[in-house]
């Protein structure tokens, strides 16, 4: 019964490949073990990624135990949250064994060795389904892994599976997925944000220790804010895009979603490498981000753009964000308000550029080399049209149409070229701001997580929700989001810190200092967690 119900969550017509085999098979046939393990499981899940790796290194926890704990949690929560599109239980346990051996042999000593991780489903994972939450890639098995994924594997992380997302990362709620919506662990009536909603919800719901997301216009930071976790978009070019299925190539960047700033620094350190396979990858020497985990903001100049606190900003969000600024001020930072300018132009600029690039990037999905091909067709062009019309969802089609239009003959100069010029002005506005400030502070989104279904009805409104995040992508800057409070409904509020290019360390230092002052943010259902595990075990009928 249970298994059948689960199958419905699997991607469209997915063959039962190795990658998803064993999806819902219990690890152990013997239920008694769960009871014995219950206490330990709860403890294990509490750890951050870096803490877990330390416990593993100290032989207090094995990699297998960590993976078991996570899968127990997944079995308990996944039905209500639906964070994952694909799970690879068999692969994860196999990998856990290999990693454990290497740790025991002293070959793996890093800060993430043995830590279970979830990967957003737009990053290629060799032999594991990679769908971009789209029907058109419903059966796609990559033949290579994304560079960021490979870097995590080198660091000894254990991949659990692929997280749900807005189709091709186009959306802000994870509701445009072809494989069902993901729900916010803090309140399942609300969205987790997007497009990396599955990754954010998996971290908040403790269905993984950390996750990778991608951020084209706020897709890491906004869901991190909605789900009360830490999310960071690094400077463009810091993490290789090789193996990331492109949406807006000049804006896309991979980054971590995790439990705290320490994890964030450790993960970023592991995935930031210069990759000769990505021409836009930048060779940096300052990727020792964990060195920036310093509790000190004395003299740090923090600017608060007045433009980020205008009309449309929820008052509870405003208060929480300004309170966080006050906390940093108390810690010695110099905080002042300023006018950033051009903020209202960022959204039209972004949607022009992103849609144009997307329309071209998504041309390769044509039913010839991989992915979905329509059943019946008359001739080549009809095959193209039917395959793409059936394979893409409405939001993706909307953006492809817009992007094709703004690039078409007669409109290129008026729309696309104009947007590239405004992009230059926006970059200049940030350059001016960073001449005065080390860090820009503001909200990550105008509100906390909206209710399910609320945003999709009005795409324009959904696009407007990206106002605080997208200009950072246009300017290639790093941004971090961390929780700074909850609204009256108990939904997390996200604080966004923006740095000048290559100044991730300043962001990490500021975020870390704030986090120390704030204290533990907590998890959605801490008090019910033990029961949940127990319930799963009972429901298995053992």
């Amino acid at each position, binding site marked *: 019964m249970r298994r059948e119900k689960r199958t419905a969550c699997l991607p469209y017509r997915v063959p039962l490949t190795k990658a998803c085999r064993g999806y819902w098979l219990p690890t152990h046939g013997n239920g008694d073990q769960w009871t014995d393990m219950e206490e330990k499981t709860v403890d294990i899940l509490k750890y951050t990624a870096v803490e877990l790796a330390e416990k593993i290194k100290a032989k207090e926890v094995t990699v297998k135990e960590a993976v078991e704990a996570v899968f127990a949690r997944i079995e308990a929560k996944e039905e209500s949250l639906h964070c994952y599109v694909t799970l690879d239980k068999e692969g994860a346990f196999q990998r856990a064994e290999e990693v454990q051996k290497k740790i025991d042999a002293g070959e793996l000593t890093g800060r993430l060795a043995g830590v279970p991780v979830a990967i957003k489903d737009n990053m290629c994972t060799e032999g594991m389904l*990679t769908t971009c939450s789209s029907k058109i890639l419903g059966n796609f098995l990559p*033949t290579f892994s994304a560079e960021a994924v490979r870097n995590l594997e080198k660091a000894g992380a254990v991949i659990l599976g692929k997280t749900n997302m807005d189709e091709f990362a186009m959306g802000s709620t994870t509701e445009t997925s072809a494989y069902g919506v993901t729900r916010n662990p803090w309140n399942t009536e609300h969205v987790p944000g997007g497009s990396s909603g599955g990754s954010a919800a998996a971290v908040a719901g403790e269905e993984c220790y950390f996750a990778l997301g991608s951020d084209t216009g706020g897709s890491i930071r906004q869901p991190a804010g909605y789900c009360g976790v830490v999310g960071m978009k690094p400077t463009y070019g810091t993490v290789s895009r090789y193996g990331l299925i492109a949406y807006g190539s000049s804006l896309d960047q991979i980054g971590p979603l995790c439990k705290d700033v320490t994890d964030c620094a450790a993960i970023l350190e592991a995935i930031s490498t210069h990759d000769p396979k*990505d021409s836009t990858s930048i060779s940096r020497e300052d990727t020792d981000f964990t060195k920036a985990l310093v509790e000190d903001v004395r003299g740090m100049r923090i600017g608060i753009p007045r433009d980020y606190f205008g009309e449309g900003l929820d008052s509870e969000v405003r208060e929480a964000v300004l309170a966080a600024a006050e906390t940093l001020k108390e810690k010695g930072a110099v905080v002042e308000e300023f006018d950033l300018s051009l903020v209202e132009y960022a959204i039209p600029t972004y949607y022009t550029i992103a849609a144009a690039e997307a329309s071209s990037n998504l041309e390769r999905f044509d039913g010839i*080399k991989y992915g979905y091909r329509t059943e019946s067709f008359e001739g080549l062009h009809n095959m193209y049209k039917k395959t793409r019309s059936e394979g893409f969802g409405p939001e993706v089609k909307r953006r492809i149409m817009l992007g094709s239009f703004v690039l078409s003959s007669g409109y290129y100069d008026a729309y696309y070229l104009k947007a590239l010029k405004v992009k230059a002005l926006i970059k200049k506005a940030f350059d001016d701001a960073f001449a005065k400030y080390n860090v820009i502070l503001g909200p990550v989104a105008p509100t906390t997580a909206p209710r399910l279904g609320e945003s999709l009805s009005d795409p324009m409104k959904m696009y407007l929700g990206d106002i605080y995040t997208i200009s950072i992508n246009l300017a290639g800057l790093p941004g971090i989001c961390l929780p700074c409070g909850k609204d009256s409904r108990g939904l997390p509020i996200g604080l966004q810190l923006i740095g000048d290019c290559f100044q991730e360390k300043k962001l990490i230092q500021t975020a870390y200092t704030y986090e120390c002052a704030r204290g533990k943010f907590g998890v959605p259902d801490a008090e019910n967690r033990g029961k949940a595990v127990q319930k799963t075990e009972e429901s298995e009928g053992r």
Partner: protein
Amino acid sequence: MAKQYETVIGLEVHVELATKTKIFCGCSTAFGAEPNAHTCPVCTGMPGSLPVLNKQVVEYAMAVGIAANCEITRVCKFDRKNYFYPDNPQNYQISQLYLPICRNGYVEIETADGKKRVGIHEIHMEEDAGKLIHDEWEDCTLVDYNRSGVPLIEIVSEPDMRSAEEVIAYLEKLRLIIQYLGASDCKLQEGSMRADVNLSVREVGAEKFGTRTEMKNLNSFRAIARAIEGEKERQIELLESGQAVVQETRRWDDAKEESYAMRSKEDAQDYRYFPDPDLVPVHISEEWIERVKKAQPEFRDEKMARYKQEFDLPDYDIDILTGTKHMADLFEQTVALCGQPKKVSNWLMVETMRLLKEQEMEPEDIRFSPENLAKLIGLVESRAINGTVAKEVFEKIFDEDIDPEQYVEENGLKTVNDEGALRKTVEDIIASNPQSVEDYRNGKEKAIGFLVGQTMKAMKGKADPGMVNKLLKELL
């Protein structure tokens, strides 16, 4: 009186560059592999793959641009040309529209009215498409991406040509420049050089250009010449009958000697070019240009002048010897080894050309080494072999590039210069041909020729004919 028309022609020439790898990935460009054996995620448009530019492509493009008197664009960029077709795995081709690597050049051609400049509008770098094969059995098309991503340069001329002869002269000139640079072998038949012809007609004296068409699928100089004639006539006929020429792309069918429009409702011809965000700009410094300039080879015109002066060869020979870079290299390398320019030229002009013609080969296809030709010349010079044997040995060199010294040794082809052995044979021949001896003695000079021939035959051609002659006269 009938109107007089002038044909206005511009060319778009695609040249496959002679790099070892593709333009954006490390796949081999070698011919003859199994379908899709030279492919990878990049050149098959796999999701998540990214292009990285092959530096040698930029070097070759610059070298051609410099040789064609172009301005080199200091910061050039790549753009995406978007169109759906199965040979184009990403459904966009990476090319250059806004900032091509070379602009504003020219080459000089010889015409009936003397020298003429053909302007080069631009040269840009781009990737080739895959190959489509029609499968009759299943009535479908099969796609092989081995050629997908092979680097091309597209050389776009100004509409400066007025006849098929000028077009051929221009193509020959480009081919020589590019071959001399080693940037491509420029074989039309194999598709490493392809020309699309843009043609319009206008009344003589008219200032405005007529509406042009673009002709594709031209695989030989002959096809180009015929297509130009055909298209010129088609357009004139249209105009004469009061119809308009439609701006369109046409495909030449050389077998039928006619062209047809490549039109489709699905073919909007709106390529939505925009800068490729996956590739960064190429910044070409003054030093880089200087370096490429310094590495430019001696081109044909300079070479011809030098051959005349240095080797004192006839113009006709020089023309053939410098007609391809390969031939010129072979000539110079062999001369360097043996120091006999006239002899080397002779072997290349006579025997080599004969064999090429017999075997229907192009000079580029010559595979023998200068070392072996030099050795052969040495053998003849030292009279170790005679002319007849030398020709035989040369055929072996031409076909298999054998070492002539070793070959002569192993097959016992050395000329017999031992007078004793030869004298014995000559005596036998005199003894067994009394009639000829008689004739000779009676003043029939010609009879000695027969006796020489018989002696050579008996010696299996290995005797020195001069010595045979001398001995015969002596003994008779």
